[in-house]
């Protein structure tokens, strides 16, 4: 139990080692540990965020799909309706066209008929006059009997 210079020596050595540790050992190691801690925390939160992002993306994809389906259905519906419309339109158009053609044909037929009738009348009146001339033996004065003839022709 003799105290001697060893006591002083150890005290100085202790002070020096504490100083060296404080200066050269403690700061870099604790700094690295802190850095790693931060890194791990960041990594974990990034993983969390990624998971959340994935979930959001999935939800968005599902919503988009649903919307697209609805839109497609709407488009098909619209197309169907439009097709029906076009068909209907074509039908009415064809009908009116047909009616118009029929009308024209009818009017043409009528015109032909009138013309034929006129010609026939003319021919009949000529025949009548011819016949009458032969029967009477004289010439029916065209001018004198013109009124009569015209009346006759109108009656035919």
């Amino acid at each position, binding site marked *: 139990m003799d*105290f001697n210079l*060893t006591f002083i020596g150890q005290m100085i*050595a202790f002070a020096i080692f504490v100083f060296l540790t404080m200066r050269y050992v403690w700061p870099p190691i*604790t*700094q690295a540990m802190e850095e790693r801690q931060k*890194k791990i925390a960041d990594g974990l939160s990034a993983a969390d965020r990624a998971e959340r992002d994935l979930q959001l993306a999935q939800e968005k994809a599902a919503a988009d799909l649903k919307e697209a389906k609805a839109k497609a259905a709407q488009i098909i519906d619209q197309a169907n309706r439009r097709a029906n419309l076009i068909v209907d339109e074509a039908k009415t158009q064809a009908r009116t066209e047909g009616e118009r053609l029929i009308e024209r044909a009818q009017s043409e037929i009528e015109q032909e008929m009138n013309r034929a009738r006129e010609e026939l009348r003319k021919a009949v009146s000529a025949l009548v006059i011819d016949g009458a001339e032969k029967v009477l033996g004289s010439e029916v004065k065209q001018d004198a009997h013109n009124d009569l003839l015209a009346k006759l022709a109108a009656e035919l």
Partner: protein
Amino acid sequence: MASEHSLTSSEYIQHHLTHLTWGKLPAGFERADGTVLDAPTWTLATTGHEASSMGFMSVNLDTLGWSLALGLIFFVIFRMVARKVVADVPSGTQNFVETVVEFVQDNVKSMFPYQNKMVAPMALTILVWVFLMNFMDLIAIDLLPYGAQLFGEHVLGMDPHHVYFKIVPSTDPNITMGMAFFVFLLILFYSFREKGLGGFLGELSLHPFSSKNMIVQALFIPVNFILEFVNLIAKPVSLGLRLFGNMYAGEMIFILIALTYSGGLGMGVFGGFLQILWGMFHILIISLQAFIFMVLTIVYMSMAYDTGEDH
């Protein structure tokens, strides 16, 4: 124990408890070999009596040397890791060092809630250094001293019986008290710095006993001062002596167990069994004592910082 066949048990124990001391012998001192010194001389002590005659002006080369070597081992290992420290996946030594550092950091954080850059590194130094010093106790008790004797005899030409070699620094009160006293100086320094002279003196003299009556208070002051002063002095003394006492006792038991090896086969086997048992138990003690030294240092620092609002 080859060179110690001629020793008696008490001589063997004495030999193990004597330091390799280098110091100044006074003029007129009669040395162990009969020569008388004409002038004060710095020399190696050849006996325990010479070593103690040197008084304060001497150095225990063995314990201080081992202490420095172990401190250097601690510093080199930790510095190597600190230089190549990576924040990515650590490996090998860095894992180990970080475990120790984190352990110390946790302890400091829970016991020392103040801002100080020195306390945590000091705690780390204490923990590892004291552990290493204590660990020397687990090395076979005669191995290194015997090696030192051979070295002294054949290389330095010394009498092997005069080569003393204590390898456990913490069994030397100079070492443990040296560290404790440094802690004490820090306690004083931080107490003054944090509380001021008045605050520190107030802490020493105004409690445990206090009174609103001025006269009674004046009477209490010396009583308080005596109590608190003893309290203050007891800190470094108990800190240093606790470690010294534990390690000295452990070392002593190893020495006694080693004595059984000279008592025949039966005693030797029994001693071997005891040594293993005590060695395993001692692993606990050396770690625990290093931990206690560290914790108490942190607590004392914390008390020095504590400005005492809660008293």
